[in-house]
């Protein structure tokens, strides 16, 4: 099953994302800040990471991951 990492500091928004992706049949994992996200991405690389860049130092985490080429910005 495809695994998706959700990085979002707002509990309510994160839980809706978890529900949507779970409903669509994905396995999800949620972390609330950039450092934890980085830790998880390096330990157990997910198939996809949803990163909130406006908070939790999203871009810093993204850059620390070597700024992966397969990145799409969602506005």
């Amino acid at each position, binding site marked *: 099953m495809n695994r998706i990492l959700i990085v979002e500091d707002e509990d*309510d928004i994160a839980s*809706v*994302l978890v*529900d*949507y992706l779970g409903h669509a049949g994905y396995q999800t994992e949620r972390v609330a800040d950039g450092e934890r996200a980085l830790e998880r991405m390096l330990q157990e690389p997910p198939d996809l990471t949803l990163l909130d860049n*406006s908070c939790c130092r999203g871009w810093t985490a993204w850059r620390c991951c070597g700024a992966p080429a397969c990145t799409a910005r969602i506005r």
Partner: protein
Amino acid sequence: MAGKSGTQRLGLVDAADHWIAGARVDPATAARLPLRDGDRIIGVLVLAPLEGLETEADRAFVARQSSFVVWTGIAGLAIALLLSWLLARRWFAPIEALTEGAERIAQGRLDARVPVRGQDELALLGRTFNDMAERLDGIESSRRAWLADVAHELRTPLAAMRAEIEALQDGVRRFDDKAALRLHRQVMRLSQLVDDLRSSMRDRGDDPAPLVTVFPLALLEEAVALTRERFAQNGIAVDAAALEQLSAQCRPALQGDPRRLHMVYVNLLENTLSYTDAGGRLEIGARIEDAAASERLVLRFDDSAPGVAAAELPRLFERLFRSEASRSRALGGSGLGLAICRATVEAHGGSIVAAQSPLGGLRIVLTLPLTPTEPLP
């Protein structure tokens, strides 16, 4: 016409002005030299005034002189005009630049600055103008930043509500008590934010309340009493012994707005309630300090863990600033409470600073200048 020589102009008259010899001279216009024999005037030498110029050479000389004078005059006038034009341009250029600058400011282009030269009054005016433009520019950019922050803060609860509602519409979630609670919480967050925004705007001094005599210790005791039950519910012990002790000894007073000061205390206590783990404690210290001219009241609020990173301490009183820790804990609060506290305390002539508490949490030290203390009877 030939001029007369000296001898042709000289005549001699007797004491009664009757002609005797030499030129016949009109005695009314002549220069006279009386001739005396002892005390008696026996005659007068008269000299007729010069009539016309005496030689061709003299006249040529005068003609040369007068044309020289005329040309010198014309040249002088031209130079004077040129100089005055140059000087006027020099003097009026800064005024023109100032006018242009003021027009640009009026059009909302706050980056307008005027060139400043020299040390005179106009240069001073130019510098003052530039300072004003600089300050306006600063106010405008901080207003923009503040609006952007407010927009971001308003957007977050809205995004959460939108996500929740769309999940309900898409059938990903079912509407139940929990969903209602979550939506309600976001709405409450929005209204709290709007309320705090309003009071933080009011605290900028647009609407100053009349100053009355306030007893800050009594107000603080009141606020502590009001929140005591909630501290007990959250499992946080409140130690206000020092406060009670000081308030038993004296009754410090100041001129201020009791409603807003009460709000400061409530905000500080709410802050501890939100950001202190259960099983923690709050210690309130109070003492009176002698300052240069008068006394001041120093109140200290120490709470236990979690604390605030040292790097974040100076930003704690900024509007809409919330520490990383408080964000990820997702605990209410609009991020305006401490900004409102600072505005109020500063309006009372006091100061408020944050530090790390030896209890492991946050220390807030509030200093308020007092009017002379009344000892208790």
